[in-house]
């Protein structure tokens, strides 16, 4: 047994690691603290704690009255949940078929899926907008249709990743359970919902987290499809804020805090799954 003792290399390693951790955490703490200070106080000394005279809720009051934060949250959560749900359902069904059935075009279809990962959003967004405009979905006054116009391309953008992750997992499942279900008289649709879905839950969670966060954070698609204030989602609203109120630093700090804190809370409770979800596609290759 080695005795635990203080060593210089270890101290250096811990210092460096802590330094990097400080850079990832401190900016967030800094902005949250400053969101409780008046604008000019931020500019004077941003490191002071917002206590006593420094403390004010004015920024938040302004954020709630001037900005439609709740509306943007509602839009964001609606869009991302729908994207997440549709991706899971469609990718699940397609992966099941691609793994378990044998048919001529199987490899071609799988190639199509893999190649689908390569298209950057830049290369498809203009024709997609044109197409949706001609269907009367994009650029309308209707809330439901506007939401739909973002959801559709985001679903398409996430399907490839989801199918690759899910096929990898379903392939590793033993087929005996499905055979047993078949002997009991289940059809393939029942097999999918009663055998495959419950067994594939961990992978579904991965896909769900990835597509939800990706959609929630994606600004580019929103810049094209959500241009009116009442339909803006949260990232779009923040972007608008920089161009309209670029000098109200207190309001900006409050808005950033309002967007980051919910994510932070979710992250603290689900970090294991989130980290796995965000890196799964990469590790699988």
């Amino acid at each position, binding site marked *: 047994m080695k005795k635990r003792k203080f060593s210089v290399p270890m101290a250096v390693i811990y210092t460096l690691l802590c330094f990097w951790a400080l850079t990832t955490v401190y900016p967030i703490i800094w902005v949250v603290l400053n969101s409780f200070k008046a604008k000019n106080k931020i500019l004077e000394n941003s490191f002071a704690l917002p206590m006593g005279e420094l403390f004010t809720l004015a920024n938040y009051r302004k954020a709630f009255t001037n900005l439609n934060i709740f509306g943007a949250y509602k839009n964001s959560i609606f869009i991302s949940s729908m994207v997440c749900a549709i991706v899971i359902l469609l990718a699940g*069904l397609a992966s099941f078929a691609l793994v378990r059935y044998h048919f001529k075009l199987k490899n071609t279809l799988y190639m199509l899926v893999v190649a*689908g990962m390569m298209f950057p959003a830049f*290369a498809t967004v203009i024709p*997609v907008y044109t197409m949706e405009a001609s269907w009367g979905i994009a650029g309308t006054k209707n809330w439901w249709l506007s939401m739909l116009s973002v959801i559709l*391309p985001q679903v398409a953008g996430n399907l490839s990743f989801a199918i690759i992750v899910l096929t990898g997992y379903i392939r590793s499942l033993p087929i005996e359970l499905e055979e047993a279900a078949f002997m009991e008289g289940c059809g393939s649709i029942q097999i999918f919902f009663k055998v495959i879905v419950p067994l594939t839950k961990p992978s579904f969670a991965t896909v769900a987290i990835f597509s939800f966060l990706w959609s929630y954070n994606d600004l580019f698609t929103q810049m094209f499809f959500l241009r009116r204030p009442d339909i803006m989602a949260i990232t779009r609203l*923040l972007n608008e804020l920089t161009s309209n109120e670029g000098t109200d630093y207190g309001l900006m700090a409050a808005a950033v805090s309002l967007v980051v804190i919910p994510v932070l809370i979710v992250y603290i409770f689900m970090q294991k799954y989130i980290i796995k979800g*965000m890196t799964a596609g990469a590790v699988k*290759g």
Partner: protein
Amino acid sequence: MGANIYKNKKPLFLFLLPAFIFMIVFLYFPFFKNIVDSCMKIKQLGTSGEVWNEPWYSNYTKLLTDENVRTSLKNTLIMTIVTIFGQVGIALLLALMVDNIKRGAKVFRTLFFFPIVVSATALGLLFNLIFLYDTGMINQLLTMFGRQELIDWKSEKWALFTMMLPVMWQYVGFYFVIIVTGLNNISEELYEAAAIDGATRLKRIWYITVPLLHNVLCTCVVLAVTGSLKVFDLPWTMFPKGMPLKSTFLTGTYMYYQTMIVKDVDYGCALAVMIVILGVVLSRIVNAIFKEKDY
């Protein structure tokens, strides 16, 4: 038996059609339509082009002479190099360090990964405050350490640095997690054997860790390169419209600028085609340099 239960192929269409219709309608068709559109006259976003450009390749000749295209290509290449060495490099160093400590590895993982979860737009606003001229966090720090004049982080001289630092910083944790996973897959016995043979700690890293990590690092570099071409949110939030003096355009932000601000939609299509070609070329080069090896 396995093939028997799935002999009836009728449900197959029901399973496959929805997903593939989505991919064909919203990925494949638009992708090719975009190439056609880049050769047509499009008056405004949302309308189809009806006549061809005169000559049809005029947008592409414009690409070659457009000075902003040159700026954006240059900046994007710099961004690629920054992501490869900055993100993957720092991530590798951090991962090697975490591999050597006994306590707290999980905590560091959680802390390092955190920025990835936050939307890049929010981070853009945050870094706007941090790099504020009069006076944000950095300039306040510099004053505290006795610097007399403030640095204008958004001036031409510093703009690229100010834009790329947050982008680099945000994704270090992502590659960190991938590399740590790779490190954990290397068996302890190899290190023990080398230690018995008298290899020093650094030698063990160089002769065992680095070769065995080769494929993981390959994946990281490919992801970093393709990722650097997709960067949009943070630069557009911090430096909209290529400010200052159109010097901070990346290929992605310039494509958006031409489409939505200048409203030259078909030229935007041509720029998108250029982004795709750039992506293919760059990933070919990376693959040629860092060939995956079997050990």
